């Protein structure tokens, strides 16, 4: 039986937010605050070419003229953008060339997070065990990317964004901002101005990426924001599966994470993008601290028969504002969105997807599972639209909410716009409360209350967990359990 289905067996002892430690690493900061000079500082630090600096400065100018969006169902005090650091990096003379050059302190951080950076350790594993190439981003910079050589042999480029700007400027210039334009929205525009690093992936035509790629993002520094930018291009007939994971220390102030992810998918290509987001959610009682996760993720299925699949497990962050979307431009292109969003304590999530059908025969599928507990608020917001040319477009949306306890809230805000008569859009939604009857039934069979909640919740989210790469599904399952600790009784 698949590990995914073995639900609760894998759920280990419950723990509090376990990534809340701070690492004392010698770091270098840009001066506090935001200005054109800071943008220049960041660009200079990274040794960027003029075109990149110009791009950033233009974004900064545009950002100054924009207003923060206020339509989401989340509440927070205005952000003082001058009270934050926009660049924080572990001190080092120059970028690390290999693992041996990386500060051992830093490697220890990733070891503590359970992230396998040591290629040899991974390689020493059992024959046939899955291997993951990892890019680790610590505050503002990518500290190490593993398995580069092996990926290089397959023609796959997997490196930090800074490196891509230096080494592959033609690809970066061609694709950067082509999916999420500079001034797409307030946070994406801010990101364009000050983004520090992120991952870059290019899979050449016809290549199936030989391993899972993943990036781990870690915010460590105090009063700093993280603005990473990820760009993934699957050329014609290529395939890649990519996973990102995120954690942060427990801090009393709110930290801003405004990332941009752009996916470009050509003819017959496929990108599977999975996220396990576990940023510090803030204090469950007072709501103090936690990450503001204001992220723009979009895939451009520009090729015919191209496919993108977003899978996200969102358990952390004080506030989540995030709508991984698909622009289904290609004929018969396919977009999928599978989401588990869990809110507990004082968390607020406003998340969902946009499926924009432009191509004839394009299809999309949305499965969203929202779980609210504590005094949290959880909103699904989704758009499905079809252009007049998107003849025969199809969408199926299923949107389920589960409420645990009496003080939480769940909202569903679907937008459906069909501009031609031949598309078929289906929307199903349910809201249920974790029932006392079910809990008692499961407990009568021998499970404790916590175990019973985990079993029922894992059952509720099973459809989505199945979409994650298997090892991560197990991780995600544990995360689900941890996030809901103390939510009942």
């Amino acid at each position, binding site marked *: *039986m698949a590990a995914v289905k073995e639900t609760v067996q894998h759920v280990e002892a419950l723990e509090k937010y376990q990534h809340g430690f701070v690492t004392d690493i010698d770091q270098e900061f840009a001066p506090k605050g935001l200005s054109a000079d800071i943008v220049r500082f960041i660009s200079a630090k990274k040794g960027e070419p003029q075109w990149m600096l110009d791009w950033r400065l233009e974004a900064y100018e545009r950002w100054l003229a924009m207003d923060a969006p206020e339509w989401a169902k989340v509440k927070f005090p205005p952000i003082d953008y001058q009270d934050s650091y926009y660049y924080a990096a572990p001190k080092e003379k120059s970028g690390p060339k290999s693992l041996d050059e990386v500060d051992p302190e830093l490697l220890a951080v990733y070891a503590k997070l359970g992230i396998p950076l040591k290629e040899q350790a991974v390689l020493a594993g059992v024959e046939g065990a899955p291997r993951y190439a990892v890019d680790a981003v610590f505050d503002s910079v990518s500290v190490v990317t593993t398995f580069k050589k092996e990926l290089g042999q397959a023609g796959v480029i997997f490196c930090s964004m800074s490196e891509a700007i230096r080494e592959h400027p033609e690809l970066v210039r061609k694709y950067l901002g082509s999916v999420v334009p500079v001034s797409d929205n307030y946070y994406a525009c801010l990101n364009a101005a000050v983004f520090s690093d992120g991952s870059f992936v290019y899979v050449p035509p016809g290549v199936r990426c030989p391993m899972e790629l993943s990036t781990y993002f870690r915010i460590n520094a105090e009063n700093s924001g993280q603005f990473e930018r990820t760009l993934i291009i699957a050329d014609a007939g290529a395939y890649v599966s990519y996973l990102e994971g995120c954690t942060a220390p427990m801090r009393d102030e709110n930290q801003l994470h405004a990332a941009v992810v752009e996916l470009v998918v050509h003819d017959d290509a496929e990108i599977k993008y999975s996220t396990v987001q576990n940023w510090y959610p803030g204090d469950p009682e007072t709501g103090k601290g936690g990450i503001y996760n204001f992220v723009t993720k979009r895939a451009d299925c520009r090729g015919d028969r191209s496919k993108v699949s977003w899978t996200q497990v969102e358990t952390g962050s004080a506030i989540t504002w995030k709508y991984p979307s698909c622009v289904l431009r290609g004929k018969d292109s396919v977009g999928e969105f599978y989401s588990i969003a869990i809110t507990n304590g004082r968390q607020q999530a406003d998340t969902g997807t946009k499926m924009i059908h432009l191509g004839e025969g394009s299809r999309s599928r949305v499965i969203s599972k929202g779980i609210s507990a504590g005094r949290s608020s959880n909103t699904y917001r989704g758009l499905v639209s079809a252009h007049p040319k998107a003849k025969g477009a199809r969408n199926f949306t299923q949107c389920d909410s589960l409420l645990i306890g009496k003080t939480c809230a769940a909202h569903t805000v679907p937008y459906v716009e069909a501009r031609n008569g031949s598309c078929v859009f289906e929307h199903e939604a349910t809201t249920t409360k974790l029932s006392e009857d079910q809990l008692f039934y499961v407990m009568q069979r021998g499970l404790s209350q916590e175990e019973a909640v985990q079993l029922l919740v894992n059952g509720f989210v099973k459809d989505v967990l199945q979409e994650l790469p298997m090892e991560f599904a197990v991780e995600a399952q544990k995360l689900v359990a941890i996030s809901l600790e103390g939510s009942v009784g």
Partner: protein
Amino acid sequence: MLHIENLHAQVGGKDIIKGLTLDVPAGEVHAIMGPNGAGKSTLSYVLTGRSGYEVTEGSATLDGEDLLALAPNERAAKGLFLSFQYPLEIPGVPALTFLRTALNAQRKARGEAEVSAPEFLKLVRIKAGELKIDFEMLKRPLNVGFSGGEKKRMEILQMAILSPRFLILDETDSGLDIDALKIVSEGVNAVRSPDRAMLVITHYQRLLDYIKPDRVHVLAAGRIVASGGPELALQLEAEGYDKYARAA
């Protein structure tokens, strides 16, 4: 085995069980019969520890151990099993996963090793076969879309796997056609043994044709108002509960 002494219990502030005393020795099957609203289901929930069922007086022990002080899962680990009148649906959790999780949770609570996958599957195959449950059905989420009869058979399968010492069957015959009733009863009879005991709660005498009780008790207005041998069930079937309801 099970000893209940002067038990009083409330639901939502209302007295439902009012001074119930009952002894079920090991190896015996006792039937509890009575009119609607007599407190039959309440008794089963009080014994298994459902929240909202508050004991105000009296005691209930299993082999001398105080049941009322334990959480529902702890009572289950001690070997107390309730076959529900209306088994719950558990979406997304395959019956097999549910069974194995429950079995291992109980074993863990008793300090026993977890059952291995092959061992578990072998056990399930045998027991499912006896209850004429298609093994494929066990890969489906527990009880979701199952018929009434299938759900009841699933309860008996859980019982057979968990191997409890004390069984409470709450209206197990409701919703069963005659063939299903036979299968279920055979399943129950198969676990009868000198070191087990059971309480069979039922409205009708019909079930007792298949699961033969050693003693029959009449529960009315929260108390045992009459007790006797199997013949009492037949008498009730003929005469109804009227006189007991009035007496109470």
